[in-house]
């Protein structure tokens, strides 16, 4: 059978202010009907550029060479009119962010009908009826009524379903999905992947899946192409590439992926510790409400948790579960409506002025965004020295410089980096600078809110290693907020699972994540795709079976 997508020696070069930058070199790949090819790689590897090139959607400053053919049509040489006929009909695209892929001011039924009418000569009424059918097919409940909803009335997962409905409206032969589940929670991700798989099987659609997540690859792909610096270094069947990688880079990449130890695997239990030290931070019955009156949102509801000296507590949950809010309450950034917060045994809410500053001097903070965490106007030295300027006002410049050098070495960065600006650093280096800033006062508590979720897996690994080693060396307690169960499992001794502003369950990491007590935690863990295609297939079948059981 003919391949629906064929790329032969594709090259893409971007012309920028600082000259031409080659993004993709010599990429050849093909997707057969009904087959899913996953294109994996770290940021900057050129995988998204390849996906855009498949539909002729490259930005204006890009030049493509080589051959790209979709369903027999040559894309590289095609005119805009020909491409417009192709897109949405022969091939269509699902983007990462469902919030921006839909027109916020048009009802979803109309948006889908528009795609139908763009390519087929059907009446308005027929197109509307077809839109309802498509919504039913992608699993939107009550599609007749939902068709007249606006995008903002849907959840993120539902919006992505609508985007998929638009993509399959004209039964395309090729679906290009660029990180289709990256912006979604794991339970929603599992549903969307199930949906995409069913669609591909039912209608024989070929799928080009771009992703950085090896678990998603294991769950969904038939074949895998691994990209590194604009080139494909390895292609093969998913079992071969993920279980028996041939290329050195693939091996390193897979090694860095945090693996969720699940029942049935021999996961190495990492750091099991029994809580015994004195509480460093304690939340008792904390409730937080944002806004006033009937539109107020209850962000936390009677949350109690404790972090003891020297231990690491992982705070996990899906978006909106209140995990970040809980961390912010612990830091005194968010005032609770009711309940007590004690930091180092003192009531943070009552402390004022000097006493409050003294308390907060014992806390270090690392937040998620490596770009926004450091002020681009300051040098690395100034960023790291800021807590010293706040808390050690008497410190001389030379002494301060010395201390900054020390902590930079502590986080395995060269002292010379101090003079550079944050712009000149990579994401991983930036997060280590943030960590150095957090540790400069030798804190007793480190609060880390998703410190590695914006990083590539290999970089994530080094940053986590540095934190773990320093913790062993310096003995600070750590409140570690993350949506990634695998990371938390490796990193935290105890885990607190949050859901909808409440603590769902908590306990030692291994027992809680391997033998969860509540159905929610079980569902959460079942939804995490593991980067082992054989194991993942078993887990998926079990999850689907238990899902139909629960649904029946």
């Amino acid at each position, binding site marked *: 059978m003919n391949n629906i997508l064929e790329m032969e020696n594709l090259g893409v070069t971007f012309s920028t202010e600082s000259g031409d930058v080659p993004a993709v070199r010599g990429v050849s790949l093909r997707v057969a009907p009904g087959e899913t090819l996953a294109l994996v790689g770290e940021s900057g590897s050129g995988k998204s550029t390849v996906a855009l090139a498949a539909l002729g959607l490259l930005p204006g400053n890009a030049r493509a060479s080589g051959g790209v053919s979709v369903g027999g049509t040559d894309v590289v040489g095609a005119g805009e009119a020909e491409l417009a006929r192709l897109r949405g009909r022969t091939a269509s695209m699902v983007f990462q962010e469902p919030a921006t892929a839909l027109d916020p001011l048009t009802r979803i039924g109309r948006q889908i009908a528009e795609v139908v009418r763009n390519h087929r000569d059907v009446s308005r009424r027929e197109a509307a009826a077809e839109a309802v059918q498509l919504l039913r097919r992608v699993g939107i409940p009550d599609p007749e009524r939902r068709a007249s909803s606006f995008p903002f009335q849907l959840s993120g997962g539902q919006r992505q379903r609508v985007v998929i409905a638009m993509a399959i409206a004209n039964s395309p032969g090729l679906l290009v999905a660029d990180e289709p589940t990256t912006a979604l929670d794991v339970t929603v991700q599992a549903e969307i992947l199930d949906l995409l798989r069913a669609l591909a099987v039912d209608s024989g659609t070929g799928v080009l899946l771009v992703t950085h997540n090896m678990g998603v690859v294991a769950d969904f792909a038939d074949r895998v192409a691994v990209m590194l610096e604009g080139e494909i270094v390895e292609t093969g069947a998913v079992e071969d590439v993920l279980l028996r990688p041939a290329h050195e880079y693939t091996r390193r990449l897979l090694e860095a992926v945090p693996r969720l130890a699940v029942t049935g695997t021999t996961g190495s239990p990492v750091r099991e510790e029994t809580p015994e030290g004195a509480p460093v931070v304690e939340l008792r019955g904390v409730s937080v409400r944002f806004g006033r009156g009937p539109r107020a949102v209850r962000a936390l509801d009677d949350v109690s948790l404790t972090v003891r000296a020297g231990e690491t507590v992982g705070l996990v949950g899906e978006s909106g579960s209140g995990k970040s809010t809980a961390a912010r309450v612990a830091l005194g950034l968010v005032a609770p409506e009711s309940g007590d917060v004690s930091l180092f045994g003192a009531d943070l809410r009552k402390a004022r002025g000097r006493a409050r500053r003294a*308390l907060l001097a014992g806390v270090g*903070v690392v937040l998620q965004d490596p770009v926004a965490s450091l002020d681009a*106007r300051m040098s690395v030295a100034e960023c790291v020295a800021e807590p010293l300027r*706040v808390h050690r006002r008497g410190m001389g410049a030379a002494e301060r410089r010395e201390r900054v050098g020390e902590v930079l070495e502590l986080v395995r960065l060269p002292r010379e980096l101090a003079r550079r600006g944050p712009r000149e650093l990579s994401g991983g280096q930036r997060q280590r600078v943030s960590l150095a800033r957090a540790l400069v006062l030798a804190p007793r508590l480190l609060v880390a809110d998703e410190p590695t979720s914006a990083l590539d897996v290999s970089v994530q690994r080094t940053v986590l290693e540095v934190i773990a080693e320093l913790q062993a060396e310096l003995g600070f307690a750590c409140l570690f907020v993350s949506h990634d169960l695998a990371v938390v499992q490796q990193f935290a001794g105890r885990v607190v699972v949050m859901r909808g502003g409440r603590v769902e369950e908590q306990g030692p990491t291994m027992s809680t994540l391997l033998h969860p007590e509540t159905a929610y935690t079980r569902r959460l863990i079942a939804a995490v795709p593991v980067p082992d295609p054989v194991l993942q297939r078993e887990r998926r079948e079990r999850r689907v079976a238990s899902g139909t059981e629960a649904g029946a």
Partner: protein
Amino acid sequence: MSVQSAGRWGLVAQFPAPLRARFARNKLAVAGIVVVALFFLFCFIGPLLYSTDQTHTDLTQVNLGPSGSHWLGTDAVGHDELGRLMYGGKVSLLVGLAAGVLATVIGTLWGSIAGYAGGWVDAVMMRVVDAGIAIPALFILLVVSAITTPDTGGLIVILGLVSWLVPSRLVRAETLTLKSRDYVLTLRAIGGSHSRAIARHILPNSVSTIVVAATFQVADAILLVAYVSYLGLGVQPPATDWGGMLSAGLTAAYSGRWWLIVPPGLAIILVVCAFNAIGDGLRDAFDVKGRG
């Protein structure tokens, strides 16, 4: 390198080489810089090379047309018009520049405090701004001038006080986005003060917005000085500025003495356009965050 010499406020890092290159690519903006520089030379260095008496009237030399001894002729009381253009330009440029800067400073402080404080403080402060914008600046100027005749310093203060509203809105918007940045949250979480957050993070990061606003503000202020002086409420004779020269020359225009109004009129148009062009260029050069 430039990063090292950036100093505490990182102002050099604020103007990295690519920024200068982007600015230089905007020909109109570069022309604006040249025009402003030429006018400053003309007004401040010019009198040293072309010395004229601008304090005493000389009734033997009134209303002369352009000639070898008076390149731009003389006015109704015998002042050399070219010399007067330099003399008046000094006032126009100085008052415009100072008032523009003053307005930007007030607006920056007001806007950053309102944006940072949020809640009811923000609401009250911004309603004050709304109320201020609802009253035409010219109306306030006319009322003030009816009560008192301001000197140059007074004029700067008054102009500054009526034109800080727009920059305050811009800076407030910028502050709102900056205050939720992770580095500000981190500082707050370890016990850093509000004033530190504003002075060290929010203001330095708003510099691009502030500089662009200031440039347009100067252009507006120069125009505003011309308005009030034209209405006879600005600096008082024998001192003058370009607006005052226009006003004085208006009657003469009907009797064909074009040299009394064309030069100051052109000067105002050129300088205001030049400052606007610089502002446009700076805005385009700064606004690169969206680009990959």
